[in-house]
């Protein structure tokens, strides 16, 4: 094994140890908080807050992370991009840790987006396949859209509560719940959580994300990233939960996702996809449970969170071993491999018992608690308990499909020549499976270290978590458990006809995945059509729009904001002024009347020179010189271009009417504005300042130049940068070949 493979294991392992040594403190009911001010003016802090909830997540992330990284060190050994993979996976892990220990919501958001980006890179790791690229992009878009909603939600929270520190917000009783902004905040935060945690109808990216290498699926899409949404709901629970909106939204979305996903899981023959759908089911269950405030449901959520991470990561790794050792993940071609893969088979069996919820495994306690929680929900106990029953029964059947059939079934011949996986790949599944069994037999170890502090972090007290025990007596959850097993075995027995039925149903029905493709194609073609409409590429259209808009804006402003047109008499002007006036007028008329481009440009030049003469008459020599030079250059440049342009054809009268309206309108409006400006008193404060300060302070007598190069040098610098950019753009336009129209 290489350094690139082992380094991440060391990083994850040491972080795990670091977090693990906090267990006594956090388990004792304390919380840790460190704050460094980062952007104090915006209220952005780097603040770390560790309570039961963050510690549980951090331990899952680093613990499972270390095991998965050890696994992938062998799984990807010899891969060209193994180092790249290690880098992605480690970056993801660090982003995920940042997400769960940040107290500042804006920092949390940054880490949230970092997990999105790193997961995009990981899903698209096999970037030479179209499927991987598409899946990666889909996951990025879905979670990215949710991330934007979350950012909006966070900003609303910050402005409503006056701080971005979540621990402070949670300590302010009802600051969000009683505010008018509660509904938008909850909607936006849930949009972020639901897309990240793949709730219906945003679920379809998660099964597609299985295009990633199996260790990635085991890590991101079972234990960590998809749980970020769950974490967010748990973290904001004290501030947002407890309303009818929260209760019903989470209950309905969670329940539908849970049942839909478990039914869809049965349909799959690809073992990895089946597991992906069971992950969806678990996310639905967690969402459902977090909708409530009762101690039982939150305890159930906290326990199930740990249970699910342990068995699901183990099973994903098992499927990865099957894939690596046999070359297939198809449920219909894997049979009786227990003899060839004894250790894998044992780990798979233990994990599957936990998933199916058999005693004495942790999954049993998790399921019992789910039932206890479902009965205690504030919404519709029968509806919720029914949904839990159906999905749990399906979990039993799927646990059989994933872990029993490939190893123990005698329905088909085992693939010959299969060897047991190397030890680095076995450590993960074995350790995770054994932990599931260990916590099942000694549930109080889990309760005191992780579950109680987590429950305390979510609802403030940890009394109900003390109920965490293997044998809770003969009660309603126990009967529901027995019903689950019966129903589960029945489904397993009839899995083939059921699967055929489901495949028929889903291939005929509409698919979210296709809908997504249509939506993306629609956005692309819509924006293309819009661009074609706005960017016609015809200069005339741009001119009409630009000057028409200017006219409309100025005219409307004048109409509503000004008081009457100032009186205009014949101004007292000299003969020279009249000459310039006639010159400009002649130039304009010439431009309008001619059908030759060169003449038109020369006419415009006459107008420009007339302007320059006005500047000279009113003693602005610098402006006049500039104007003259620019006019000269413009005529020369246009003449060069005009030589090659076709002769102007007389335009239809209708078109010229529109031009006339715009031109005359602009002229009139500008004249009115100028008259209004000149009739009012002129504030000469700036002029006086420059006149007096120019020589003593800047040693210059030409005020215009002194302003340009000294007083306002930064502005000038910006302007010459614009000149350069304009030159580069024109250069690029002239040098580029027109793009060929694609057929």
């Amino acid at each position, binding site marked *: 094994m290489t350094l690139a493979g082992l380094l991440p294991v060391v990083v994850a392992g040491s972080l795990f140890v670091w977090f693990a040594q906090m267990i006594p403190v956090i388990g004792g009911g304390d919380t840790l908080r460190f704050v460094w001010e980062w952007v104090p003016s915006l209220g952005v802090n780097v603040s770390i807050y560790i309570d039961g909830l963050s510690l549980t997540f951090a331990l899952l992330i680093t613990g499972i992370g270390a095991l998965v990284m050890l696994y992938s060190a062998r799984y990807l050994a010899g891969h060209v991009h193994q180092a790249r993979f290690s880098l992605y996976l480690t970056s993801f892990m660090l982003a995920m840790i940042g997400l769960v220990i940040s107290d500042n919501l804006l920092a949390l958001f940054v880490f949230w987006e970092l997990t999105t980006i790193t997961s995009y890179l990981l899903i698209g790791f096999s970037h030479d396949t179209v499927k991987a690229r598409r899946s990666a992009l889909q996951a990025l878009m879905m979670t990215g859209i949710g991330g934007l909603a979350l950012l909006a939600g966070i900003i609303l929270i910050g402005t409503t509560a006056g701080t971005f520190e979540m621990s402070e917000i949670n300590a302010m009783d009802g600051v969000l719940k009683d505010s008018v902004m509660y509904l938008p905040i909850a909607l936006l935060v849930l949009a972020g959580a639901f897309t990240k945690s793949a709730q219906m109808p945003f679920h379809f990216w998660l099964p597609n994300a299985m295009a990633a290498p199996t260790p990635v699926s085991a890590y991101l899409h079972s234990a960590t990233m998809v749980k970020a949404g769950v974490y967010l709901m748990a973290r904001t629970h004290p501030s947002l939960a407890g309303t009818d909106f929260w209760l019903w939204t989470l209950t309905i979305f969670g329940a539908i996702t849970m049942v839909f996903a478990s039914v869809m899981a049965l349909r799959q023959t690809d073992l990895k996809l089946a597991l992906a759908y069971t992950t969806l089911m678990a996310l639905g269950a967690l969402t459902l449970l977090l909708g409530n405030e009762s101690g039982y449901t939150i305890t159930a959520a906290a326990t199930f969170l740990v249970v699910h991470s342990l068995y699901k990561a183990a099973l994903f790794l098992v499927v990865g071993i099957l894939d690596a050792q046999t070359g297939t993940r198809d449920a219909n071609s894997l049979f009786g491999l227990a003899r060839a893969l004894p250790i894998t088979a044992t780990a798979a069996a233990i994990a599957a018992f936990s998933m199916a919820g058999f005693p004495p495994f942790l999954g049993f306690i998790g399921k019992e608690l789910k039932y206890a929680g479902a009965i205690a929900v504030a919404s519709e106990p029968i509806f919720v308990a029914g949904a839990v029953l159906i999905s749990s029964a399906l979990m039993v059947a799927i646990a059989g499909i994933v872990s029993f059939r490939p190893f123990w079934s005698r329905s088909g011949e085992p693939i010959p020549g299969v060897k047991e996986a190397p030890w680095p790949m076995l450590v993960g599944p074995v350790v995770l499976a054994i932990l599931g069994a260990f916590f099942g037999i000694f549930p109080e170890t889990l309760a005191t270290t992780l579950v109680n502090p987590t429950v305390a972090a979510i609802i403030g007290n940890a009394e109900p978590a003390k109920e965490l025990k293997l044998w809770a007596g003969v009660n309603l959850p126990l009967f529901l458990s027995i019903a689950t097993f019966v129903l589960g075995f029945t489904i397993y027995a009839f899995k083939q006809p059921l699967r055929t039925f489901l495949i028929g149903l889903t291939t005929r029905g509409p698919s979210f995945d296709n809908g997504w493709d249509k939506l993306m194609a629609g956005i692309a073609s819509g924006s293309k059509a819009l661009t074609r409409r706005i960017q016609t590429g015809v200069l005339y259209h741009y001119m009409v729009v630009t000057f028409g808009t200017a006219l409309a804006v100025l005219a409307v402003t004048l109409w509503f904001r000004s008081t009457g047109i100032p009186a205009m008499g014949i101004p007292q002007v000299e003969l020279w002024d009249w000459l310039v006036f006639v010159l400009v007028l002649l130039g304009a008329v010439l431009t309008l009347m001619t059908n030759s481009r060169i003449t038109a440009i020369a006419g415009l030049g006459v107008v420009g020179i007339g302007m320059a003469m006005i500047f000279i008459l009113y003693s602005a020599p610098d402006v006049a010189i500039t104007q003259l030079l620019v006019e000269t250059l413009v005529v020369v440049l246009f003449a060069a271009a005009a030589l090659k342009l076709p002769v102007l054809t007389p335009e239809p009268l209708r078109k010229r009417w529109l031009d006339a309206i715009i031109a005359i309108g602009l002229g009139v409006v500008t004249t009115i504005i100028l008259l209004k400006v000149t009739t009012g008193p002129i504030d000469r404060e700036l002029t006086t300042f420059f006149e007096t300060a120019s020589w003593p302070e800047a*040693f210059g007598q030409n005020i215009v130049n002194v302003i340009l190069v000294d007083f306002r040098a930064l502005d000038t610098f910006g302007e010459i940068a614009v000149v350069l950019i304009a030159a580069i753009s024109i250069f690029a336009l002239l040098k580029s070949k027109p793009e060929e129209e694609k057929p």
Partner: protein
Amino acid sequence: MNSIILIAGARLQAVLLLVFSAYMLLRGHNAPGGGFIGGLIAATGFVVYAIACGTADARKALRFDPGSIAGAGLGIALLAGVMAAFWGDALFTGQWLFIGETEDSKGIPLSTVLVFDIGVYLVVLGAILSIAFSLEEAV
């Protein structure tokens, strides 16, 4: 256009315009002129030259690529602004040195302001020539 008279005239004119542009640039602080006007005049000189002798000759006479000249101008202008930092002043604060200063006269003034104006001159010259040359070559 192959006119001997035009070519000979344009050569002379271009030289005169370039000298004049330097004059306008230098006197700008106290009389009408400055980097912007100077740059425009110099550009006119080269544009006239390009019309008479063709852009290939004009590019050769210019020696540097007009885009590079403009880029260098922007760099020089920025440098002139940053130089204020050596005296502990804010960005773009003018720094002056008077050589041979006496009680009556300030002697020969040197300043970062002039350096800045030279940058402006080069940007305007380079940008306009870049547009003009490629426009003439494109048609």
